[in-house]
C-alpha cells in the first residue's frame, strides 16, 4: 500500500510538473490582459505535434525538436494574440474570451484535418532518447529516468522563468504591466511589446510541456489540448490566477492529487477529483492559494 502510494506520488509530481508548465501560460496572460486564453491548450497540442514531426519526419535530434517546438509555438502564440485578441483589446472581456474559444476550436479542428483523428504514436523512447530504466528508492518507491528528465526539465524552465521575471528589465516591465497597465505605459513601457513577450514565453512553455507529455505518454492526438488545457487552467486558478508561483504549486498539487486518487483505487474518478480539489480550494479561498486581490486605489 505504502509503496503504491509512493509510486503514484512520484507519478503525480511528473504529471504535475507538466501541468505547471502549461498553467504558467494561462496565469501570465491573465495577469497582463485579464484574458483566459482558451487556445492555450491547443498551443500545447501544437507543440507536441511539432516536436513529433521534427523527430519523425525531419529526423532531428530530440533536443533540437524540443527547442524547435518551443520556437514554433512562441511565434504561433504571438501571431494568435495579434490576430484574435489585439483587435478586441478595447471591447468587453467576454468578446475576447469568445474569440479565444474560437481559436481553440479552429486549432483542434485544423490538427484533426492535418493529422487525422487517430492518435499518432511517438517513437519508442529508446530510439529517440534513452532506454527506460527504473531506480528503486526507499520503501519500494520507484522512479524512472524518464520521470527524472520530465521533472528536471520542467523545474529548470520554471527556475529560469522565475529568474527572468524577477531580475530582467523585461521581466520587471511584465510585472509592472500586470499590476497597473496604464501606469506601466506612463513609465515608457511599450505595453504591446510586453503582451507579445508574455504570449511568446507562455506559449513556448506550453510547447515544452507538449513534447514532454508526448514522450511521457507516447501518444499525441488532435484533441489532447482540451483536457490537459482544462487541467492546467484549473491548476492556475487553484494557485491563484495571475500568480506565477501559484501556477507552479497548483500544477504540482493537481498532478499529485490526481495520482493519489489512482493509488486509492479511484482511477476512474481522477478527473472528478482534480476538479473537486479546485471547488474545495475556491470555497475556502476564492482568490486561490497564492492569489492576492490587487487593490486599485483611485
Amino acid at each position: 500500500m505504502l509503496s503504491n502510494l509512493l509510486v503514484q506520488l512520484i507519478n503525480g509530481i511528473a504529471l504535475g510538473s507538466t501541468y505547471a508548465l502549461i498553467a504558467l501560460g494561462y496565469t501570465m496572460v491573465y495577469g497582463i490582459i485579464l484574458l483566459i486564453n482558451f487556445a492555450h491548450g491547443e498551443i500545447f497540442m501544437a507543440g507536441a505535434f511539432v516536436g513529433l514531426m521534427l523527430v519523425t519526419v525531419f529526423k532531428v535530434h530530440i533536443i533540437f525538436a524540443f527547442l524547435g517546438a518551443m520556437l514554433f509555438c512562441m511565434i504561433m502564440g504571438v501571431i494568435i494574440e495579434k490576430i484574435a485578441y489585439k483587435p478586441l483589446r478595447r471591447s468587453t472581456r467576454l468578446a475576447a474570451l469568445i474569440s479565444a474559444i474560437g481559436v481553440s476550436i479552429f486549432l483542434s479542428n485544423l490538427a484533426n484535418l492535418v493529422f487525422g483523428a487517430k492518435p499518432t504514436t511517438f517513437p519508442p523512447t529508446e530510439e529517440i532518447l534513452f532506454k527506460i530504466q527504473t531506480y528503486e528508492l526507499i520503501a519500494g518507491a520507484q522512479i524512472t529516468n524518464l520521470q527524472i528528465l520530465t521533472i528536471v526539465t520542467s523545474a529548470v524552465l520554471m527556475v529560469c522563468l522565475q529568474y527572468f521575471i524577477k531580475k530582467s528589465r523585461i521581466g520587471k516591465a511584465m510585472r509592472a504591466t500586470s499590476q497597473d497597465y496604464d501606469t506601466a505605459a506612463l513609465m515608457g513601457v511599450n505595453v504591446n511589446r510586453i503582451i507579445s513577450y508574455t504570449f511568446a514565453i507562455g506559449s513556448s512553455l506550453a510547447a515544452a510541456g507538449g513534447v514532454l507529455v508526448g514522450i511521457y505518454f507516447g501518444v499525441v492526438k488532435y484533441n489532447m489540448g482540451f483536457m490537459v488545457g482544462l487541467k492546467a487552467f484549473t491548476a492556475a486558478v487553484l494557485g491563484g490566477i495571475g500568480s506565477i508561483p501559484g501556477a507552479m504549486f497548483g500544477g504540482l498539487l493537481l498532478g499529485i492529487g490526481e495520482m493519489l486518487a489512482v493509488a486509492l483505487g479511484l482511477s476512474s474518478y481522477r478527473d472528478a477529483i482534480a476538479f473537486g480539489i479546485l471547488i474545495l480550494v475556491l470555497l475556502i479561498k476564492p482568490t486561490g492559494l497564492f492569489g492576492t486581490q490587487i487593490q486599485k486605489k483611485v
Partner: protein
Amino acid sequence: MLVVENVDVNYGAIRALVDVSLEVHEGEIVALIGANGAGKSTTLRSISGLVKPNKGRILFEGSELQKCPPHKVVEMGISQVPEGRRVFPLMTVLENLEMGAFTRKDRANIKDDIDKVFAKFPRLEERKKQPAGTLSGGEQQMLAIGRALMSKPKIMLMDEPSMGLAPMLVQEIFNIVKEINQSGTTILLVEQNARMALAVANRGYVLETGQVVISGAAADLAKNEAVQKAYLGV
C-alpha cells in the same frame, strides 16, 4: 514648450474636453485648476497619450504628440505623476524607481539618480526593499514623484499630488514641487487645492465642464472674484 491646441476628447457620448487650448513655457509652473470632473486629468492623459483626442493638436518642442503612444511620449521627455499615486504595489520601492528609468539608455547613471531620489526622500531609502503597497499615502506620493523624476523629464505632469494627504504633508509636497521646478524641470500641475496651486504657479488655467474659462498669471487668478468664489472659498 508644450502647446495644447483646440483639443476635444470624447468618452463615448460624453464630451470630456471641448476645444481646450493651453500653453506651458520652459521653466514655468502652470496650474490647471477646476472642480471634480472638469477635465483636468483628461487633459494630462491626452498629453501623455493614454487617451487620443478626437480633434486638435498637442505639440511638444514643435513635434506632434497626439498620435504618439504613451511610451514614445515618455522618451521625448514628458513624465507624469498620475492621480492617486499609482505606485506598483507588489514591486519594491527600488523596483518602482527602476521602472521610472525604463526608457533611459544611460544605464550606468541610474544608480546615482536613485541615490539622488533617496537624498530627497530619506524615508524611501529606509523602505527600499519594501513592496510599495505597504507604504503610507504620503510615502507613496513621494515614491510616485521620485519615480517620475527617474526618467529625467523636461516637463513633469503632476495630477493632484496633494490629494488625500495630511495638511503638513500637503505643504511639504508643494515645497517639493517648487524645488523640482527650481532645479530645471517645467511643471504642469493639476490641483483641486487651488489656493496652494496658485501660490506656487506662475500662470494658471481654470477648467469648467471640459472648457478653459479663465486663464492668466497665477497672482491675478488668485485675486479674480469669480475664481475666489468658486475655488478659493472666499
